[in-house]
């Protein structure tokens, strides 16, 4: 088991290096295969795997095919499938919930209503077609060895002044997503952009600091652990915590001014060949057993808002107001608006890359 996992991890990192092709992993039914469930996801397998095993414990006759891609490829495939009227995916899972909202808006999703799905907060659900099943904060991650405790930023204002006051020290040492490549990075940036003043100062600082941009959370976290990057901004808290649990020398800060909270989304495509099985899997994600795995083994944060051991910052009560949930619903539609996206990306690039970039 452990060996398999390690091997898988190795394969996956290779794949990531290739950075585009989808990889399918098969989890044969432990109790003899009678049904096959095809998941199509933009979630790291090592994060998601405990949920697959958890599901196979309650449904031992189900073989699960786990196809992993990046958020944009998942979106493209789902969109093309929907237009073509056929798909092999039974359940689409991605952190870019704005993609799912666009798909559902266009009628590509199947509705599912059950006591399990109804138990989650209303903002994580749209039309009973898009379901957010996690609560993942956008956190600040830093290298514990390289960032002295008094320099650890706890708010965006802290980060802005740190970039101004210790510019030589942190230049080229602050990382975040390349929002042109990372769906989640773009989503977080778009919501940060709603606080225009602080966002403007932030990306202006990033530009001066020669922000290191990467496509994916895991790359950023790895480089922070390795000390190539000192501070990472707006990273997915769940991935960061998983790395920390594995011994990465990193600290995780929940910003005190406000924290964006994402609920990773799932959707059953309207032509899903095994829709009933997909519903069952969805219900499992929201069941107490599924939520326990999410909290303890997969994403470490859940709807309760309790912080896992070792995370710095205030707890995450959604009511307290510092949490800004990325509400799953029509308000995510403009995030994917092509004009808006283009404009936003242009602005971002202009700030991040001071010299006119040859790349677009």
């Amino acid at each position: 088991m452990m060996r398999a996992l390690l091997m898988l991890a190795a394969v996956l990192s290779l794949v990531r290096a290739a950075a585009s092709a989808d990889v399918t992993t098969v989890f044969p039914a432990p109790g003899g295969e009678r049904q096959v469930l095809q998941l199509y996801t933009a979630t790291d397998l090592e994060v998601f795997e405990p949920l697959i095993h958890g599901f196979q414990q309650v449904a031992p006759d189900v073989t699960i095919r786990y196809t992993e891609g990046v958020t944009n490829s998942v979106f493209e495939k789902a969109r093309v499938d929907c237009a073509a009227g056929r798909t092999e995916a039974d359940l689409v899972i991605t952190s870019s919930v704005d993609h799912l909202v666009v798909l559902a808006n266009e009628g590509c999703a199947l509705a599912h209503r059950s006591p399990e799905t109804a138990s989650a907060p209303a903002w994580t659900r749209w039309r009973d077609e898009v379901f957010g099943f996690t609560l993942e904060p956008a956190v600040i991650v830093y290298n514990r060895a390289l960032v002295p405790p008094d320099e650890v930023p706890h708010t965006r204002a802290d980060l802005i002044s740190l970039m101004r006051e210790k510019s030589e020290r942190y230049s080229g040492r602050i990382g975040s997503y390349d929002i042109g490549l990372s769906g989640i990075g773009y989503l977080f940036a778009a919501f940060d952009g709603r606080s225009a003043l602080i966002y403007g100062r932030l990306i202006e600082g990033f530009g001066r600091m020669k922000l290191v941009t990467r496509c994916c959370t895991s790359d950023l976290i790895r480089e922070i652990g390795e000390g190539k990057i000192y501070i990472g901004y707006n990273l997915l808290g769940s991935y960061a915590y998983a790395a920390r649990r594995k011994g990465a020398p990193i600290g995780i800060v929940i910003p005190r001014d406000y924290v964006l909270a994402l609920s990773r989304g799932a959707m059953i495509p309207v032509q899903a060949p095994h829709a009933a099985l997909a519903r069952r899997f969805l219900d499992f994600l929201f069941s107490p057993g599924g939520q326990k795995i999410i909290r303890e083994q997969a994403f470490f944060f859940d709807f309760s808002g309790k912080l896992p051991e070792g995370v710095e910052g205030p707890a995450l009560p959604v009511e307290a107001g510092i949490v800004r949930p990325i509400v799953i619903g029509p308000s995510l539609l403009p995030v994917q608006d092509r004009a808006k996206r283009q404009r936003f990306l242009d602005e971002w690039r202009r700030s991040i890359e001071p010299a006119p970039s040859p790349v677009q």
Partner: protein
Amino acid sequence: MSRVPSLFGRLIGLIALVLAGGLVVLGWASWAYARIAADEAYDRLLVGAALQIAESVSTEPGRITVDPPISAFETLAMAVSDRVFYRVVDPAGETLTGQTDLDSARRNGGPRREASISDGIYRGFPVRVATLGRYVTGPDVAGWIEVTVAQTIAARLDLARDLTLKAMLLVLGVSGVAMLAVVVAVRQGLRPLGRVEAVLAARDPKDLSPVVVETPREIRPLVAAINHFLQRLAERIAGMERFVADAAHQIRTPLTALTAQVELLSSEPRAERRRTQIARVRERTDQLGRLTNQLLSHAMVIHRREVVPLEPVDLVAITRAALAETVPLSLDREVRIGFESACTAMPVLGDRVSIREAISNLVHNAIRHGAPGHLSVSLDEENGGYRIRIEDDGPGIPAARWNDVVLPFVRGEEEEARTGGSGLGLAIAADVAAAHGGRLTFCQPAEGRFAVDLWFPPIKPDDAGEQE
């Protein structure tokens, strides 16, 4: 018993039907109204979102840009489950952003600042579409851009359903209360009938006095009708009792006499006396027979008055028949009998049998008691009606007794003894005349003449036997 229609049930059923009809109409009306109200409410959001998107349009050198704000979609997200589509078109007709196949709600004319709103179908979803324009000017472009926002109508339908449901609950509640009130009111309203029933039920069967019971105005005609009926019943029973008593008395006297005659006869040894006795017995028997006939005919006349409906009959024909049937009695004297009629037919509403009986009786009386040698029957028009006059040259009845003789059995004892009549003939005739709305009168048309007149009213154009 259960199949008998109930007044209560009918009233309640009718009112329930009216209320149910009202419910249907109100339901339909409130749905229509709720749809309008829901559209008005959500149209504002739709137009608001379109405005926000239009405000986000700006010009840069060489191009027009649009930045649909998240807040616009948060506004639309008030309709939680509805899909949203939008499109921004530049002055050249190029789609700046959004769904390129979304149609504008503007039907004719160029884009204007005011929003046009319409219903439509987009990708198979029923949607509400709002379109508005905004004039932009830049260094090298100027013109109207057009913003169209469409939203599915689930939230509108939900709101309309909710409004309708609430309105209907209210209407149902009010209808329920109204129904209850009606039930109580109808019960209350029918209660006086129950009182009348109780009074009638509690009554002694022999008690035919008018019912006295406190009732509302609407029930009074019923009580009056009952009382009228009771009165007629009482009169009828009284008449029958009187008739039975009179008849018993009238029959008993000749029977007693007959018994005495028969006694005498049986103890009479002499054959010659016996013959005269037998003649007397026969006379008494005849007398008794006549009396019985008259009693029966009186009873018949009274009975027919009550039960036989009047029909158009011809007085002339009836009179002629009655005369022909009565006259051929053997007469011991020479009597000239005349018949004349002013018209060939005299139609009246009447009972043929009773009228004939009346005329027969009068003719019989005249022959028996009056006319020594002359009897005439004549028919004339008089006072718009018809008069039958039976005239003879006999002594007649003294004017002082004209009022009495029409009552049954009123005839002096001595007179009865002399004539052997029962005195019922005039009473029968008078009864018949009264039953037809006519009258019986006496007169002395000339010295030594006496006449009995029967007058019948003509058929009124508008009646068909209502004379009772």
